[in-house]
């Protein structure tokens, strides 16, 4: 009985894409098998003939149409890059679209230690699940995970309640264990929580030291509503992409407006992204007038509705701002603050007003206003709020107030505690408090692998409303990264300790001399900062 190569192998042979060993073996088979030889021959002829297809000619009037459009001033934004990953831009859009400007770099799936694999694949069955569905997952890995019996599936889950929160600010969860079936194939099943509409996945080994995040693009899963993507899923995808891939964010927002033409937030997101990509020149005239017409239609439909959601009110306010309609913006701003003060944009507006008044208000007044906002702010609002309040507290010069806001900031953003403490220690008024916090943190760094340093403690995680699910951050590399990259220089200047990474381990050493005018700060934790040669 003759065993023929698979069709896939014959295609690979025709393309010249097989490795030498397989190519030689296949060639040997082809020498004696006319059937397979004919298949390869056919494929090669197909390729040649496809290449030789004549170029079609565009209709002659097309050139004139293009020139006429150019003269009219029409503008088009072309997709010039596949996966642009620029930083999130200007204040206007950021303040409107993404609620509040973030101040720190957060943990995320795409900041994990990266060993991307080109050929790996993560498949979901069903490909288009409904909310709460059970999903079978199949991972086809590469040699990156050779020898691993099981792998971990990490995810960022997004729900409608996440609003426009940035990707980096959401917890990374370990959602399933992938069991190896051999030949690089791993499987798992998981049930999507009912409220999850959009999820992003990466695969890692048990220690989190090797991560396949699809070349940082991640694998995504979009929840469907019958036969089309769920409205909230599309919005969450748009928000998630806002700092990762503008082109795809724009495309997703566009899809959301096409599938859900009455969804205000989608129009707001679309106009924000178009505005962003248009740069200083602003939205092209034709586009602007289309948006204005759409806004007018939405306003006619919603003005008399007094049971609108915060998302709708915020969307109308943001959309009006984007279109430069100050009168409408004021009208919707009032409604937003009155009817949905807890909404992302309402908080952004309130905070912005506090910030505006801060130039004339004494710090104590500003802090009192911030205290009131703090009382109603939801958990994901508290990070930027406490960050700003901390700045004002530093201006106030009162160490108790500084300590209070620093601790609040640390609670909502524990992984940036080092940054906050070093920042505080770098200003004269906060030096003492900052150093004491840094000493405390260093004391907690009990081992180079201490997960508590770079990420939330297990207790903190459990108090997080989202974190009933299993949570695990790749804290060790992130902790090193933060120390090494952001804080070590300031830290060194204050405490006299250097941090460096050697053989994947965090080490420390005490400097030989003290900087002028700085008191000795003593020696922190033994294990974290061994003397040279000690460990």
């Amino acid at each position, binding site marked *: 009985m003759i065993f023929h190569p698979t069709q896939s192998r014959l295609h690979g042979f025709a393309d010249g894409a097989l490795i030498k060993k397989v190519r030689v073996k296949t060639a040997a088979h082809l020498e004696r098998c006319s059937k397979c030889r004919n298949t390869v021959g056919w494929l090669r002829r197909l390729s040649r003939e496809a290449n030789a297809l004549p170029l079609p000619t565009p209709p002659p009037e097309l050139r004139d149409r293009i020139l006429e459009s150019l003269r009219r001033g029409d503008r088009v934004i072309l997709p010039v890059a596949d996966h642009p990953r620029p930083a999130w831009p200007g204040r206007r859009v950021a303040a409107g679209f993404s609620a509040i400007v973030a101040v720190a770099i957060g943990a995320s799936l795409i900041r994990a230690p990266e060993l991307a694999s080109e050929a790996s694949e993560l498949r979901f069955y069903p490909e288009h699940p409904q909310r709460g569905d059970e999903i079978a997952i199949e991972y*086809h890995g590469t040699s990156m995970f050779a020898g691993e019996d099981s792998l971990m599936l990490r995810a960022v889950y997004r729900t409608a309640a996440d609003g426009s929160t940035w990707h980096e600010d959401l917890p990374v969860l370990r959602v399933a264990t992938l069991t190896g079936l051999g030949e690089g194939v791993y499987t798992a099943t998981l049930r999507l929580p009912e409220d999850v509409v959009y999820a992003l996945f990466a695969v890692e080994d048990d220690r989190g030291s090797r991560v396949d995040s699809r070349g940082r693009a991640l694998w995504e899963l979009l929840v469907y509503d019958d036969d089309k993507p769920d409205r909230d899923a599309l919005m969450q995808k748009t928000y998630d992409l806002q700092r990762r891939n503008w082109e795809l964010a724009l*495309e997703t927002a566009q899809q959301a407006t096409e599938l859900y033409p009455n969804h205000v937030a989608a129009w707001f997101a679309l106009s924000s992204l178009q505005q962003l990509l248009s740069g200083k020149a602003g939205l092209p005239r034709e586009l602007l007038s289309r948006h204005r017409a759409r806004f007018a239609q939405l306003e006619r439909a919603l003005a008399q509705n007094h049971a609108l959601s915060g998302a709708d009110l915020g969307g109308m306010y943001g959309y009006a701002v984007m279109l430069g309609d100050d009168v409408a913006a004021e009208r919707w701003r009032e409604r937003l603050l009155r009817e949905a003060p807890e909404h992302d944009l309402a908080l952004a507006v309130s905070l912005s007003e506090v910030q505006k008044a801060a130039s004339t208000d004494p710090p104590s007044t500003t802090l009192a206003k911030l205290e009131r906002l703090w009382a109603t702010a939801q958990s994901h609002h508290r990070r930027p709020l406490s960050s700003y309040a901390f700045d004002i507290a530093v201006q106030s010069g009162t160490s108790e107030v500084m300590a209070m806001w620093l601790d609040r900031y640390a609670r909502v953003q524990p992984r940036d505690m080092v940054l906050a403490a070093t920042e505080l220690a770098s200003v004269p008024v906060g030096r003492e408090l900052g150093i004491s916090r840094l000493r405390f943190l260093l004391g907690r760094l009990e081992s180079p692998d201490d997960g508590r340093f770079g990420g939330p403690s297990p207790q903190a995680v459990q108090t997080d409303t989202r974190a009933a699910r299993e949570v695990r951050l790749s804290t060790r590399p992130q902790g090193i990264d933060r120390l090494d990259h952001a804080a070590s220089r300031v830290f060194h200047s204050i405490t006299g300790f250097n941090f460096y990474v050697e053989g994947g381990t965090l080490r420390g050493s005490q400097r030989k001399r003290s900087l002028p005018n700085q008191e000795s700060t003593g020696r922190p934790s033994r294990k974290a900062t061994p003397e040279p040669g000690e460990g």
Partner: protein
Amino acid sequence: MVTERERHSTLVKGARAGQPDAIAGLYDLYGKTVYGVALRLSNSETDAEDVVQDVFIGLGRSLASFEGRGSLEGWIKRVTARTALMRLRRQRARNEISIEVGLLASAASSESSPTDRLTLEQALAGLPDELRAVFVLKEIEGYSHREIGEMMGIQPGTSKIRLHRARRELQRSIEGTA
């Protein structure tokens, strides 16, 4: 005397400045190529014309991102492919085109030429969008699976699978009419 290279450079400069004449000059040079890519990817003359129109209207502003490392023609073709694919994706979202394609059971016939019984153009036009796009980008435009993956937002492995499916479908179309 103005060399071809200088003329080309002047056109690019003028296009970046938004001069219609310069864009018309680039259209004269690359319009046919752009239309070819657009037509094969979109499978519709109307859509292809829209894509070409979009490409040349947006070209001036987009040229800022052309760093001159490769050829301008290659860059324009790539932008055209992305524009056409984006349009296809939007249409797909509306129409939910199925890409399920049955596997071809029969082996290839012996010495037949792919275009003996049905023209390749016709068979290509009959392919589902996702399969045709991969086939056109790989076999006609010469992109690697990795590049195709980046353009289409799919894995290189998926691109390979789609290429295989496309070829099988073409074979079935061509030979099925025998």
